């Protein structure tokens, strides 16, 4: 015990995993006890069993996978769009002061505008079709992404670029062969973080203007007081998020074995 609680002390991977799993189990246990003893109305907090039943049912009738599928599609499209435009612009902002002067103040301004406030506007512009949701995800991630990618580009040490010049690299070579590979791991970390935020904005869009998707399924469940379906919706989003994050982490480990921070 004394060792485990040493300030900034290390613990084994196995112990770490064990403690991690135990926190999940603890919550499920508390949840089971509270609902089992009938301490809370099932309408407010359904039992884990009910939630599991709903999960199995919606998986079997295809609703859950359908909704998850359409939500993932929207996330991927909106996020890809943000990456396709945001990454090159971000790199330019982080590399050329003139581009920065043009883009950064604008981005700083826009990113303080709450994305949910844009939902009605987007609906006016593009109705409630697929485009609207993709645009919301795009708006939510694009401006943040530009600024964060710019920071990634700026984090490349001057001396790394300077060395390449003294080895004969010209501007374009320095960007292609030094700046891009050097910033790549940080950039992937940025993407990993931003795709998490994309879910927030997607659910906002689906809550307001949709007839499909996980956000919509949550809203619909609320209308019919199907609290367990709300739980299933939220948990599903959580699990998809967790899987995405782990995949990104794995990808980063595989792509950048040379990175200092990469064990």
């Amino acid at each position, binding site marked *: 015990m004394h060792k485990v609680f040493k300030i900034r002390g290390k613990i084994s991977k196995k112990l770490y995993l064990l403690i991690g799993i135990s926190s999940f189990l603890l919550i499920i246990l508390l949840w089971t006890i509270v609902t089992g003893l009938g301490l809370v109305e099932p309408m407010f907090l359904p039992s884990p069993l009910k939630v599991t039943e709903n999960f199995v049912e919606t998986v079997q009738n295809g609703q859950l996978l359908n909704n998850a599928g359409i939500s993932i599609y929207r996330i991927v499209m909106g996020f890809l769009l943000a990456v396709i435009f945001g990454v090159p612009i971000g790199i330019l902002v982080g590399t050329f002061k003139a581009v920065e002067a043009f883009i950064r103040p604008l981005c700083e301004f826009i990113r303080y505008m709450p994305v949910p406030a844009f939902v009605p506007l987007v609906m006016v512009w593009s109705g409630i079709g697929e485009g609207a949701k993709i645009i919301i995800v795009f708006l939510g991630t694009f401006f943040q992404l530009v600024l964060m990618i710019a920071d990634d580009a700026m984090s490349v040490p001057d001396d790394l670029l300077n060395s390449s010049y003294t080895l004969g*690299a010209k501007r374009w070579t320095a960007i292609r062969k*030094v700046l891009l590979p*050097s910033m790549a791991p940080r950039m992937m970390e940025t993407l990993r973080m931003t795709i998490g935020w994309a879910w927030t904005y997607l659910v906002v869009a689906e809550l307001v203007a949709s007839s499909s998707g996980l956000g919509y399924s949550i809203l619909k469940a609320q209308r019919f007081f199907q609290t367990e379906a709300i739980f299933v919706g939220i948990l599903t989003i959580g699990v998809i998020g967790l899987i995405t994050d782990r995949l990104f982490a794995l990808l980063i480990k595989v792509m950048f074995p*040379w990175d200092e921070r990469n064990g």
Partner: protein
Amino acid sequence: MSKSILEDQTGMPLEANMASNKIIARHIFKDYRTKKKEVRALQDINIEIQDNEFVCIVGPSGCGKSTLLKILAGLDFPTAGEILLNGKTIVGPGEDRGMVFQSYTLFPWMTVEENIKFGLKLRKISAGEIQKIVDSYLKKIHLEEFRKSYPKELSGGMKQRVAIARALANSPEVLLMDEPFGALDPHTKEQMQLLLREIWEVEKPTIVFITHDIDEAIFLANKVYVMSTNPGEIAEEEGIYLPFRREVEMKDSQQFIRLRKKINRILYSDDMTAN
């Protein structure tokens, strides 16, 4: 004009060296404007570096020696004055002036071998030729078995050895070195000094080496420029007439100690009077 230093040890004709001034810096000034005032970093710097010469510029931190080297590299520009490389004004960085930095600047996504290849691959040299050059430098820096390693697997001393090889493989006109051993422990530092001097004794690249370590400067150089601070200017030019083949024991020789004392006095005489 100082007597040619090389002539003493190599018996090369005096004129051959005199004629080949590789770098000439004339009346270099560098001013910085901060919010409050104008700061003079460099004042009227005049230096001459000959072909195949190993020159050290020694001075306390903040004397502007790194700025001077950056200007030689073309990575910074003087407020006034002129610098010539082989008679041509320096307008920017280029492969003719290789540089080794104090900070570790190996490309971390490239192996040791790929790092050394970087400059060569930017030029029209055949793959076979490149490999030959890389192999010979890997041997010189004793890192043949690390050719496939990434920089993160190397110690600080090894990283700097690769950085030196990377710069020299490009066969630059001048090798500029900005306190390359400043972050290394004393033992590794001495090893690196020996290795660098050894490489110089064999290949005779023209080197300009910045340091605040007086011993390092004397041990490595044929000529030492001593810089004083506030504003940064050349206080003294000192020829080092130690034997051509340098060995660590020389640091205890009478000649070495005399030089150390002399440069120390030039650098820190102001402190003495102030105290």
